[in-house]
């Protein structure tokens, strides 16, 4: 079976130990700040700060580099298209109707950095929080457990479904199937593959239903009744004093930045 969608980097660190709810709040505040700050220098400083934070919390360079690589195409698109579609200020080069302007370039750089800042805020949460804690955080924030379970099952089985698709294609190719003809014909030839993948997925979910039932997953109607016991949680989340301090710190930072922007207009 293929790997699952899991970004967690298992390490011992301060950020890893921080309550996932606080980290989630930190990420949301980070989004707001990234949108509010319109200075390129401030964005770059924020991005640098995030790198230092992650490295200090023992997330290896290779992981950060992978995120950079994943963002690379988007960055290139922003840097190339944004100046052309939103020109402003002094014209540097003009080719036909296209004008490359100083203002456009700065805006593109700002948008690109902002996007990276957001990506690294998401990374800071996902690299340092295991899936179980993440789901638990959402449950403690009020989501029903079955939603949390569905979310982690999705992360587990989406790659499996994709793998199923690859497997069926390979099985067909190994028996003489060759992609040919126009787009319509190719699409038609993909239909049986899709059907096979859907059947495979249904069978996977059938087996999973059995597995969940055999391991004590109560049907939703009877959960918590005398027939089936209330679910307990191993290693439940607890806000320690450090968690509260960081939470207050993040909230104060949000207030300070908003106040400054409102009072001094950015």
């Amino acid at each position, binding site marked *: *079976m*293929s*790997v*699952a969608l*899991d970004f*967690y980097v*298992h390490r011992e660190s301060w950020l890893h130990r921080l309550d996932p709810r606080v980290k989630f709040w930190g990420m949301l505040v980070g989004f707001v700040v990234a949108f509010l700050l319109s200075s390129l220098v401030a964005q770059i400083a924020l991005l640098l700060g995030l790198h230092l934070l992650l490295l200090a919390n023992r997330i290896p360079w290779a992981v950060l580099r992978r995120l950079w690589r994943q963002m690379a195409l988007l960055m290139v698109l922003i840097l190339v298209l944004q100046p052309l579609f939103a020109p402003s200020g002094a014209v540097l080069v003009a080719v036909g109707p296209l004008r490359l302007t100083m203002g456009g370039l700065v805006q593109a750089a700002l948008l690109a950095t902002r996007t990276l800042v957001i990506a690294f805020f998401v990374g800071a949460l996902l690299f340092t929080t*295991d*899936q*179980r804690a993440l789901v638990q955080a959402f449950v403690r924030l009020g989501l029903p457990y079955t939603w949390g379970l569905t979310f*982690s*099952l999705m992360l*587990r*089985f989406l790659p499996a479904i994709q793998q*199923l698709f690859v*497997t*069926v294609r*390979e*099985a*067909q*190719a*190994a*028996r*003489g*199937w*060759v*992609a040919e003809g126009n787009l319509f014909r190719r699409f038609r030839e993909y239909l*049986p*593959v899709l*059907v*096979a993948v859907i*059947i*495979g997925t249904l*069978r*996977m979910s059938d*087996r*999973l*239903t*059995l*597995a969940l*039932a*055999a*391991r*004590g*997953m*109560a049907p939703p109607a009877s959960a918590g009744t005398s027939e*089936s*016991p*209330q*679910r*307990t*949680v*191993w*290693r*439940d989340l607890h806000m320690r004093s450090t968690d509260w301090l960081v939470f207050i710190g993040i909230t104060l930072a949000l207030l300070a930045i908003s106040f400054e922007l409102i009072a001094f207009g950015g």
Partner: protein
Amino acid sequence: MLVVEHLNFAYPPPGPDFLQTEALRDISFGLGTGEVLAVMGASGSGKSTLCHVLAGLAPRYTGGHVSGGARAAGYDVLATMPPAGAVGLLFQDAATQLFNPTVEDEVAWGLEALGTPPQRIGVQVEEALARFSLLDVRMRSPWTLSGGQQKRLALAAVWAMRPRVLLLDEPLGGLDPQGRAEVLAALETLPQSGVTLLLTTFRPQAAALAPTTLVLAEGAATSPTPTVEVLRDEARLVEAGILYPPHLWPTLEARCAPSPAPGITVQDVHFAYTDGHAALHGVSLEIPQGQFVAIIGPNGAGKSTLLRHFNGLLRPARGAVRVQGKDAANRSTGDLAREVGFLFQRPEQQLFAATVYEEVAFGVRALHLTDVSGRVERALARFELAPFAQMPPSILSYGVQRAVTLAALAALDTPILALDEPAVGLDGREWARLLAWLAERRAAGVTLIIVTHEMELAARADRVVALANGRVVADGVPDEVLG
């Protein structure tokens, strides 16, 4: 603790044109607290069905018709679903049912569902991990583990809930010899733990864990008999399709003179996966047409990776592959399918057509071969699949699905066959069918390249190639390589 009386079970018919399939017929036996019983039967004999009924899953989740009586751990399982803390079930395909992000979470999940107090969960997780030797992989993702580890994890997850009755459905199923040895070692300690144990198997090593054994054939059972007696009566186990001991195997000797024509030529092939993990480091092989080559080696040695180069599923990063003397680089997998028949692992994931007939006909049509119906019917007959021809392949048992993938290959009649672990999880009857077909192909001068962990099979090849860490470490006649 476990009482079964005149139990009958029939699955609902798979479609309007089918009869319902009788899976269990008049089964009766009883087990006291702490007793161990093995249920031996060939693939499709009703072993899994029995486990599912006793765990309260069938017909509750599967549909079907049940009659008679079944009590486990004090629960009438036909009337109420027994709690997981009373009756535990290890599924045959345990690996696909692991769904937690880490090994320890997987073990804790069931305990949480049972409502175990959090401070006790930690203790029970620890004990289960220690018992099944999983402490060193506790933070790993379950789906990065080997087959044997996954099976032990699934077992640990069930065992941690301390069921009074434990049902193990083919605990050694689908595993290579190393995985089987690991799981068997883990199982050996269970009978002393006081749990009432029922295990289904077609392997004598697993049955030997139980003092008594019941033999299941086509849904009907013998009465429990001392296991030593059951295992002594080899002829009967062979007849029931459970065993196919090597001394009965066909010779698999070549009946044609060795051909000077090239079959598959591999020249200094290097390959690395996109995640950077290098799988092959300069492999060279010259396989003449008609040779029978067994490729052996530990998990991760690069055996499947090498085999996938023979029909273009993978392309070398460096080096060349030639099929019957012609460079394969510019030919698609679909085109190479004319010369190279390829059998994948995990047959249940390869089946895509609406019926078994269509599944077998797919390749014949894709390659525009003549006499479609003749080829398909001969292949179906060869693997005793005619009764299943109009059934959807997805609902069939593992052994029958494996036979369908073999029939799909047989219908193409290719001069080269590349088979990836064809023997994993086969019972006696399926081994017999596979070996008879291999013997016939061999006599017809077909090149056989088989990746296998089964040394009895490798010993019958003309030549054994051993891989380790992406390199050929031994290449010669079986006696030389296998020692």
